[in-house]
C-alpha cells in the first residue's frame, strides 16, 4: 500500500491542533515566577535525592529494563541464528 503523505500531513496537523488547542485552552496552575537566583536553579542534588529515595523503585526497575533490552538487543542483533 502506498503511503499517503497528504493524509499523514493532515492527520499530524489535526493532532497538533487538538493538542495545542487543549494545552492552550487550559489555565495551567503554574508558579508565577521562576527562581531567579542561578544558584537556586541547580537541582542536580534534588534530582539525585529523589532518584535514590522517592523513586528508588523505578530506578531498580530501570536497571532490569536496561538489562532486558540489552539481552534482547544482543540476541536480536547477533548474526547467527539457530532456529
Amino acid at each position, binding site marked *: 500500500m502506498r503511503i499517503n503523505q497528504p493524509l499523514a500531513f493532515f492527520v499530524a496537523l489535526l493532532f497538533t491542533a*487538538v*493538542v495545542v*488547542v*487543549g*494545552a492552550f*485552552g*487550559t*489555565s*495551567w*496552575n503554574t508558579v508565577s515566577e521562576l527562581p531567579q537566583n542561578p544558584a537556586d536553579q541547580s537541582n542536580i542534588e534534588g534530582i539525585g535525592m529523589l532518584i535514590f*529515595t*522517592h*523513586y*528508588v*523503585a*523505578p530506578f531498580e*526497575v*530501570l536497571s*532490569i*529494563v536496561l*538489562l*532486558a*533490552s540489552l*539481552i*534482547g*538487543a544482543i*540476541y*536480536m542483533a547477533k548474526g547467527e*541464528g*539457530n*532456529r
Partner: protein
Amino acid sequence: MENLMFLAPEITVAATGLIILFIGVFMSPRAKNTLGYLATLGILAALGLTVQSFGIEATMFSGTVSIDALSQFFKLVFLAVSLIVSLASIKYNENSDHTEEFYALVLFATLGMMVVASSNDFILLFCAFELASFATYALAGFEKQNPKSLEGAMKYFVIGAVSSALMLFGISFVYGATGTTSIPLIAENASLLAANPIGLVAVVLLIAGFGFKMALVPFHMWAPDAYQGSPSVVSSLLAAGSKKMGFVAAFRVFLIALAALQPDWQFAFALLAVVTMTFGNVVAVSQTSVKRMLAYSSLAQAGYIAMAFVVMTPMALTGGIFYTLAHAFMKGGAFIAAAAVVWMITTQRTGDLEVPDHLNNFRGLGKRMPLAALCMTVFVFALAGIPLTSGFMAKIVLFSSAIQAGMTWLAVIAILNSALSLFYYARLVRYMYFLPPEGKKISLPFPYAAALLLAAAGVLAMGLWPEPFLQWAMDAAHVLI
C-alpha cells in the same frame, strides 16, 4: 525500612531471571533444557508467595508501590500466564542455544507486568510498562530466521513505541496539571484536569497508550500481526499476559487517578468497547489462520473487558477483573494449543507449512493429538462463553452488570457479539473433531501437555467453582472504588 517480603514475588521472579541468565552462560544447549524447569519453579514459587500475600494492604517506597488486592490479583494473572508459557516453552526451546535469553526475557516481562500491577506512581508505571514491552519486543522476534516473526516484532515495536510516546505525552500533561506523578495525589488534585480541555487530551492519550496493550480498536492493528507472527508461546504471553497489563494500568489510572474525568473516559471506553468487540468478532469470522483468529477473538474479549470501564459498578469491575483471569487461562491455553499444532506441523513436515497454524492443519486434531484437541475445545468453548467454563462465568458477571446498571444496550451488543463468536469457535472445534485427520497420531510432548492441562484446569475451575476467584476479584474491585 519497608518490609521487602511484600515484594517477594517480584524479587523471586527477578532473581530467577538473573540466575537463569547467569548459569545459562555456562551450560551446553542440551543442559539448558533444565532452565525451563528452573524458570517454572521460580514462577511457581512467586505464585505461591503471591497467593500467600493475599489480603495484605501496604504502600512502599514512598508510596510509589502499592500492595493491595488489585495488584495481587493481577500478579496472580501474570504469574499464571507466565507459568503456562514457561512450561510450554520448555518444549519450544528444546536443544536451543538461547534458552537462557528466552527465559530471562519471559521472566523480566512478567516482572514488568507485576510491577505495573503494583505501581502507584506514573514513573514506576511507565518504567515497568516499558520493561514488559521491551522484553516482549525481543520475544516476539525470537525466531529471527522467520520473516513472520520479525515482521510481527517490528510492527509490535513501532506501534508500541509510538504508543508509549503518546502515553508519556499524556502523562506529561497530567503531571503538568497536578504537579505530581503519584496516583493518589493526582486523584486529589484532578480538579484542574477535569475543568480544562487538556484533561480530555490527556485521557485520550493515556487510553491510546494503554489501549495499545489492551489492543482496543483502533490501537489494535499490531496485535493480529504480532500474535500471528510471533512464536505461539510468545503470542500466548502477549495475548494472555501483557494485554492484562494494559487493563490493570488503566484500572488504576482511570478509576483512581482520573476518577474526576469519568465522563470523558467512560464515553471513550463505551465507544471503544463496542467497536472493538464488534470488529474483533466480525473479522475473526473470515480468518483461516488460527492464531490470527485467536488474535481477533482476543480483540473481542478486550472489548468485553473494557465494558467494565463503562458500567463501573462494583459488579462490573468484579466482572472485568474476573474476566482478565479467565481470559488469561483460556487465551493463554489456546495459543499454547496452537503452538503444539505448529510444532506438530513443523516436525512432521505435513500439512500447510506456509501457514503452520492454518485451520486446515487442525483437521482431525482430535485423532492426532487428542489431549491438545480436547484442551483447545475447552478453551474455545470458554472463549465463546459456553457454560461450565470460566468464560461463561466471566460473561455472566460482566454482562449482567451492564443490565444492573441499566445499560441494556451495551449488554445486548455484547451478547450478540458473543453469539457471533460462536460461529468461528465452533468451526475450529468442527475441524478438530469432525474432519478427517491428515497425518498420523502424534504423542503430545510433556511440556505442552502440562501447560495445556494447567490452563484447562484453570478454565474449568473458574467455571465450576468460581466463588473464590469471584471473591478475590471483588476484593480487587473494592480497591478501585
